[in-house]
């Protein structure tokens, strides 16, 4: 037994030991687990806020939440979902899977890894505690436009700023770790073009994070100095410009939404070939398409600002650039369909979620394309049409992607198969819930319902009622999911190492459950194949 293992067994036998183990761990699997549980908790919290919001919106009139509290809930729902549920979930998956997928013993910077995680519980405790501060929590939407957030924000705004800084630092440090790991710790023979796509999408996402999270940090720092140190970045009376805030924010904000989906693309690219028993159709294409999306994401930020009074030339530029992003995204969707085509497909739960992801993310992409058309955008902007669009790409996008990944890799993490029947029930209820909640929002938006309103006029009532019923169902499915996950951790049919017949990749060559330390010596990959790509060619040592 290595000294590592000795040290760990010493900790396991007491409550103090338990705390020490989890506070001090530098192990990528344990840190991955911490991120995933944190994300699950915050997903429930932000989801509960959504339940309350939808309860208020069930009928016209104010029943539950006074307008200011409603605005606080809307703000926190967005912030916690984006920064607390989706991002940590993807980082958790990255932590668990990237080292195993590239044949590395751990992340390149394990202690930094621990630090990156532990910042987050503090950041979110701070953010959520603003609900109980005098003046209430931030109430200006997750996009916190100036001067509503700078001049007119409640006292808790400064704590919000501090929280955002902490989350940003965590993300940036985590992203540095991921890039250094991927660039340095791949098993010999695993060239970049032999890496699994999940690793590729995370490599690209990590670069996006390093480039844009600091810009967000800049924006909130300028907010802080405008509020307290006499600057006027966004204050017209001092010669500043509120629209400048929007430029800086969305320069971060648009790449951010690609950060929220790219790992999901990677997950789909792992799962669909497995259950189609067929290689990913166009590996190189998928890599280049993802890189194109990432690069393009830097030049489209203005499409969030078409009504701010931009001149014609700028509007046209952003319209064309935004429409262009549909091309590489479409290429990815076509590749997934071509992967399935003529395969031999089974529909276990991970595959169901992956297919649901592709179909519904595409629907979200369609509404995105419609939003790009500036004249039409003048009618869609800041209405529920936009809310429908981003919930389609985020929920069936990022969240279904995460759930698909969890079902796919849970047997590897825990050594047990999840209950397939329950998994399928979860999927179908979630599909029903998601569509019932968010599809009507396209129509309430088209009918003229603005965003971020606590109460609405009567012609929107029917759509809202449907959405609220759907949301209730969706909330219940989360409880089911939690139950399934906990039950799988505690027991279930024993999982084999391979788990899924069609799965390829180094992670399937280690035992299930994966031991705390894997690939302490790098695996030998199969001799290089004649073609220079091979999505997941590697099985350690043995021949087929």
């Amino acid at each position: 037994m290595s000294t590592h293992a000795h040290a760990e067994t010493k900790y396991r036998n007491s409550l103090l030991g338990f705390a020490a183990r989890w506070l001090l761990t530098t192990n990528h699997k344990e840190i991955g687990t911490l991120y995933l549980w944190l994300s699950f908790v915050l997903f429930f919290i932000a989801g509960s806020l959504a339940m309350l919001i939808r309860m208020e919106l069930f009928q016209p009139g104010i029943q539950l939440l006074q307008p200011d509290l409603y605005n606080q809930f809307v703000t926190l729902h967005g912030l916690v979902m984006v920064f607390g549920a989706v991002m940590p979930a993807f980082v958790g998956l990255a932590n668990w899977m990237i080292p195993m997928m590239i044949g590395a013993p751990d992340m390149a910077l394990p202690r930094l890894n621990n630090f990156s995680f532990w910042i987050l519980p503090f950041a979110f405790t701070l953010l959520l505690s603003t609900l109980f501060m005098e003046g209430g929590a931030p109430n200006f939407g997750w996009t916190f436009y100036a001067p509503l957030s700078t001049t007119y924000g409640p006292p808790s705004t400064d704590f919000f700023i501090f929280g955002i800084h902490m989350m940003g630092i965590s993300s940036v440090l985590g992203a540095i770790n991921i890039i250094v790991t991927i660039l340095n710790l791949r098993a010999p023979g695993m060239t970049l073009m032999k890496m699994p796509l999940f690793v590729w999408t995370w490599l690209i996402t990590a670069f996006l994070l390093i480039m844009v999270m600091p810009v967000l940090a800049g924006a909130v720092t300028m907010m802080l100095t405008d509020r307290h140190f006499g600057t006027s970045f966004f204050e017209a009376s001092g010669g500043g410009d509120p629209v400048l805030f929007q430029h800086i924010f969305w320069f971060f904000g648009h790449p951010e939404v690609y950060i929220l989906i790219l790992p999901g693309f990677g997950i789909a690219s792992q799962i669909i070939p497995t259950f189609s028993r067929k290689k990913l159709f166009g590996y190189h294409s998928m890599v280049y398409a993802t890189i194109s999306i990432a690069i393009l994401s830097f030049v489209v930020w203005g499409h969030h600002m078409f009504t701010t009074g931009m001149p014609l030339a700028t509007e046209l530029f952003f319209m064309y650039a935004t429409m262009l992003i549909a091309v590489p995204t479409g290429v990815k969707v076509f590749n997934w369909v071509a992967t399935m085509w003529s395969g031999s497909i089974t529909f276990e739960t991970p595959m169901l979620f992956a297919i649901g992801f592709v179909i519904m993310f595409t629907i979200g992409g369609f509404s995105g394309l419609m939003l790009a058309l500036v004249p039409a955008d003048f009618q869609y902007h800041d209405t529920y049409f936009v809310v429908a669009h981003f919930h389609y790409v985020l929920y069936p996008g990022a969240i279904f992607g995460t759930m698909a990944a969890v079902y796919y890799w849970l047997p590897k993490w825990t050594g047990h198969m999840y209950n397939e029947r329950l998994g399928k029930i979860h999927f179908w209820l979630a599909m029903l819930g998601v569509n019932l909640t968010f599809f009507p929002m396209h129509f309430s938006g088209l009918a003229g319902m603005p965003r971020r309103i606590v109460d609405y006029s009567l012609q929107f009532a029917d759509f809202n009622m449907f959405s609220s019923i759907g949301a209730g169902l969706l909330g219940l499915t989360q409880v089911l999911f939690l139950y399934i996950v906990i039950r799988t951790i505690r027991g279930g049919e024993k999982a084999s190492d391979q788990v899924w017949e069609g799965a390829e990749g180094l992670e399937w060559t280690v035992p299930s459950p994966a031991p705390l330390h894997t690939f302490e010596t790098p695996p030998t990959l199969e001799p290089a194949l004649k073609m220079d790509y091979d999505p997941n060619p590697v099985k350690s040592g043995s021949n087929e």
Partner: protein
Amino acid sequence: MSKADNSRRKHTALLSVLAVGMFGFAFALVPLYDVFCELTGLNGKTSGQVAYSDPQTPVDDRLVTIQFLGIVGTGMPWEFRPMEHQLVVRPGKLYTTQFYARNRASQLVTGQAIPSVSPGLAAIHLHKTECFCFTQQQLAGGEEMEMPVTFYIDTDLPEDIKTLSLSYTLYRVNPVEIAQVASN
């Protein structure tokens, strides 16, 4: 230190520099945005600089309508309005218009007027040789005054712009900020 460690350190250092650089870039966006807008006038801000009219500037034949608007920010206890709503002018020629202000409060109040021009593209063609917006303005309690703006529209104004609007939003400021604004 092994080659592998070296590589890791190098990558970590480079990426950290990138992160810090992007933080700086966010701040660089501020002057970049200003420069871009000043060059193109795209956000309707006038240059805040005193312009000097060139007596040789040829006066154009065409007529342009310029509207004047006054808006008072919340908490500013002044009455503030343009004394004429519009002028029909010729590009190249100098004109003066007045704004009326009266301090309704009983103590000294300092104000800063922030100009904005629509369409934005017209802003770089509007040159002010005298404007109450160049400096803060003070009125004692109950005092009133007329504040002039002397300007010309240059002949490079695009042919298709026949009407433009010049608005001033008047904000209450602390006199302490005089030094900051004057340096803008």
